[in-house]
């Protein structure tokens, strides 16, 4: 909903803050396909990033329901493994399954959430940014300090499902170093009513308790800018399980998971002169999971009580050379090392060393711009334990070249056209290769070829402004990695047998009107996505030519928002057309269309009386808000077997000082 009202702000994040203003440094070749940007102190419509992404065109968020349920993103039917999620330019990755749970990311502390289908054209990107099929960029908000020594915010959010979500943010200046400390706690019982084959039941074992603590530091050293982020997250949650027939004598699920994510990431960027710049970035992450099916509480559970530890070390060096004021060349080189350990039986302890490199060039004039790059990814996979369970794994090296071309043309002031062609690959995950599987060392990376055009029009006439975007595209996924069970349901193998052809169209129209004053404004957004994502794996098979699972042919929505001085109101309706939970598009697996409507109201109160002598950039302020979700109490499922909550309310109060 925010995407509407803050279009102005969006443009700020397109540009770079580099001191010199060469064309190549400030003009993007492609703009984000979708973006939500927040003004300082703006009330976030939801605490979860997944809730923002859900309203982007071309995007499906797979949601298993509830506050603690897994939420992953799929862009233009490519599959979530092809979507890179980048936090402050550094990838949030998961070598085990390449699924990034967006429900764990708080919109707190972010200044923007942007989706790029074509290559983001910023200088000094990491090589992994070039290697992603589509990219979600989460931009961190800078500390809200202009003149003062410190500032902060406390927020309390509470509401349905016994949800309590307090958070604290504190900005402080330590000499030349800016510091932001964030802390957040979340507890929710996850209980909500759902329809169990005609009988109303309450979802059980969906509770979650989580905590987050992070510290960000930034400053200047040796003539360059540095930043460092230390992040810790822990949660303990239940998995309610799919809705299936179950004897009333046994519970649906007693599965619990406790996890802990720790990472440290940072970087140093320096413009050595007007032509040459470098960026050095690094990350270390350590993720621990304890999964317990609790068979002593549920006789239907399998007796799993397992621990996983995943670690990753990552270094990136990016260099940018401005050859003329319209032509630049970038070279990025990344190296990463991943490990996965577990007490699962016959666990081979996979290790991966991966190199990613990208050579990019950028030509930028005001009306015509071009970006081309070639990325290379090579990964060595090996095992600390080669032979386990009677079969041995081969060390394997896999590599691929990934070319891309993006063009921009602005034939008129009101018209911009950009086009891109891109081929990317996703490596097999550790799960694909080694975990509880009969290994297949012949597995090759899954490829995604994308061809897309964005046509953007915009104009302003007096108090009225509008913009429209029309984005047709064609994607082809080949060598799709598909799991096939062997004779035992516990032993699967992976094969490169899938092919998918995707033809799609994203349409977006926004219009806004100033209502007399700058702080009175009404906006409307209409969005529509068409996706024909057809299985072309096996000619003559039952599924040939059918729509792949969970992709609606038609989806869209409408968003209305009104700002009246310090009061904002917004309404959002999302409509998802019919889908199928599997490629056999039969009635048994049809998921009926559904629509979801949410509304929010927020009011800011400037507390002028609290201003003391010290002059600071911002005045103390209180914001009160309420969100009404699923207003019409629709009963729906995003993923078959996982019912979503009905009508629910979330209240929030924020105090800034």
């Amino acid at each position: 909903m925010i995407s509407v009202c803050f279009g102005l702000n969006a443009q700020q994040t397109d540009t770079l803050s580099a001191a010199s203003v060469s064309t190549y440094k400030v003009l993007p070749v492609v703009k984000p396909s979708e973006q939500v940007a927040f003004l300082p102190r703006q009330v976030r419509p939801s605490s979860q990033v997944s809730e923002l992404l859900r309203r982007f065109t071309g995007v499906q968020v797979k949601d298993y329901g509830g506050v603690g349920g897994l939420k992953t993103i799929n862009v233009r039917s490519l599959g979530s493994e092809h979507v890179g999620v980048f936090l402050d330019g550094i990838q949030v990755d998961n070598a085990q399954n390449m699924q990034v749970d967006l429900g764990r990311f708080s919109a707190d502390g972010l200044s923007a959430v942007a989706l790029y289908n074509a290559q983001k054209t910023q200088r000094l990107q990491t090589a992994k940014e070039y290697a992603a099929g589509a990219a979600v960029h989460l931009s961190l908000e800078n500390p809200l300090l202009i003149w003062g020594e410190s500032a902060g915010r406390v927020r309390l959010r509470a509401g349905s499902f016994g949800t309590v979500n307090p958070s604290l943010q504190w900005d402080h200046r330590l000499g030349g170093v800016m510091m932001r400390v964030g802390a957040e706690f979340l507890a929710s019982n996850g209980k909500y009513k759902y329809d169990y084959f005609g009988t109303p039941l309450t979802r059980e074992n969906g509770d979650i308790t989580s905590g987050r603590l992070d510290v960000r530091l930034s400053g200047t050293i040796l003539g360059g800018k540095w930043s460092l982020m230390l992040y810790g997250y822990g949660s303990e949650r239940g998995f309610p399980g799919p809705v299936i027939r179950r004897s009333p004598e046994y519970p649906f699920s007693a599965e619990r998971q406790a996890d802990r994510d720790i990472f440290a990431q940072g970087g140093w960027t320096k413009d050595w002169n007007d032509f040459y710049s470098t960026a050095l970035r690094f990350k270390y992450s350590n993720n621990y999971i304890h999964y317990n099916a609790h068979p002593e509480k549920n006789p239907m559970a399998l007796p799993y009580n397992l621990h996983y530890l995943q670690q990753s070390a990552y270094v990136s060096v990016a260099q940018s050379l401005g050859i003329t004021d319209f032509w630049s060349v970038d070279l990025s080189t990344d190296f990463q090392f991943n490990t996965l350990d577990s007490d699962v039986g016959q666990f081979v302890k996979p290790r991966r060393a991966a190199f990613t490199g990208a050579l990019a060039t950028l030509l930028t004039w005001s009306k015509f711009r071009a970006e081309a790059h070639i990325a290379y990814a090579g990964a060595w996979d090996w095992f600390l334990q080669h032979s386990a369970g009677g079969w041995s794994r081969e060390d394997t090296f896999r590599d691929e070249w990934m070319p891309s071309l993006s063009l921009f043309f602005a034939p008129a002031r009101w018209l911009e056209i950009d086009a891109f062609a891109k081929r990317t690959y996703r490596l097999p995950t550790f799960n694909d290769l080694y975990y509880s599987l009969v290994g297949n060392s012949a597995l090759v990376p899954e490829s995604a070829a994308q061809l897309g055009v964005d046509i953007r029009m915009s104009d302003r006439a007096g108090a009225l402004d509008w913009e429209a975007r029309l984005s047709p595209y064609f994607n082809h996924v080949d060598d799709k990695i598909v799991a096939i069970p062997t004779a035992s349901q516990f032993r699967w193998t992976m094969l490169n047998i899938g092919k998918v052809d995707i033809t799609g169209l994203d349409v977006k129209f926004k219009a806004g009107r100033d209502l007399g004053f700058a702080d009175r404004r009404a906006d409307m957004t209409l969005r529509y996505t068409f996706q024909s994502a057809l299985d072309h794996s096996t000619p003559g098979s039952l599924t040939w030519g059918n729509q792949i699972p969970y992709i609606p042919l038609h989806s869209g929505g409408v968003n209305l928002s009104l700002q009246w001085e310090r009061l904002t109101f917004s309404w959002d309706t999302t409509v998802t057309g019919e889908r199928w939970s599997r490629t056999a598009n039969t009635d048994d697996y049809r998921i009926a269309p559904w629509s979801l409507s949410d509304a929010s109201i927020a009011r800011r109160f400037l507390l002028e009386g609290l201003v003391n002598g010290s002059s600071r950039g911002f005045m103390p302020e209180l914001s009160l808000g309420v969100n009404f979700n699923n207003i019409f109490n629709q009963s729906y499922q995003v993923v078959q077997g996982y019912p979503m909550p009905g009508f629910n309310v979330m209240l929030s109060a924020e105090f800034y000082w």
Partner: protein
Amino acid sequence: MLLLCGVLFLGACQKINYREEPSKDEELTGVKVDVSAFSGAARKLFVLNEGQMGSNNASLDFLRFPFGLYISDAFAKMNPSVGAGLGDVGNDIALIGDELWIAVNNSGIVEVISPYDEIEVAAISVPSPRFIATDGKYAYVTSWAGAYMDYSTFEGSNPKGQVYKIDLKTKKVEGSVEVGYQPEGIAYYNGKLYVANSGGLASMLPPTYSYDDTVSIIDVASFKVTSTVQVQINLKNLYSDGKGNIYVTTLGNYGDVHSGLYTFNVSNPTSVSLISNYVSVPAVYGDTVYCIGTETEFDWSAAHEYNLWGAKDGKKALGIPLDLSGITPYSFFVLEQNTFFIGDAGDYVNPGTLNCFHGGNKLWSVQSGVCPGHFVVY
């Protein structure tokens, strides 16, 4: 499918009393298939589709012989009051007397229906039921979960499975006995139950990280395990030939231990012999165990060439030419000499196919539910 084994033998000596009044399921429509080549002894061939775990899409199809109609999802159609359908993962189906018993694994239910009109008779709670056998008085159901009820036995160790005993008349669980890890196939012969233990989960879990390799022998009168026979790791299907020979298949370990068919005689259970390796899907008919297998079973990089052979009186008896090109057998049923049904699960998440072979040739194939896995004839 082994259930058949245990049951078929009874079936052979039992005379089925078909009810003659019109069945309520006669209005069900289906796909016409050619059954003119078969003898007319049977009314229906039931096909239990396992479904995909967690998707609640187990289903029951049947082929109605007099009309040559293949009818899908009969349980849900005939039992609309059971809103949830058959349930999650249909693991076994057995004809016991004039009832069909179906183990619905991840629902924790043994569903009893009438084979006459597919209408529910009873739904019995059994945790994680796997396979069914009977001695004519009780049904015996292997279960992966029995021991989990006792917390004290779980801490630090992987619990063993159970065999549940259910009264055929009252449909009440009358007790259970502990067997090996993750028991699968079960058959009754001459006062004893023979149970194949797999250890399919135990192989991945502490403390042993190893498969089970035993057959548990239960004395029915005392309902106690009287002896345990070591066979091979990861046992799956178990059949009695009604003449004192027990046959048991192993899935192997997907690496250096191949699948195979083993046998022993009840008079000397410790003397186990390997009949042949490479058993992907077995079936029993009369006193013969039929197997379809491939030597390249653990190599998934290329298509397999499958062979059909039989075993009788404890020995490999015959190779049968059958053109299985284009089919990946997931399940197997022998209707009569030279008439075979082979289920193909396709990609395992979408509906599969049922292929009918007669006289060495494929007659037809029809779309089944997801993972057509188990058969019984009525």
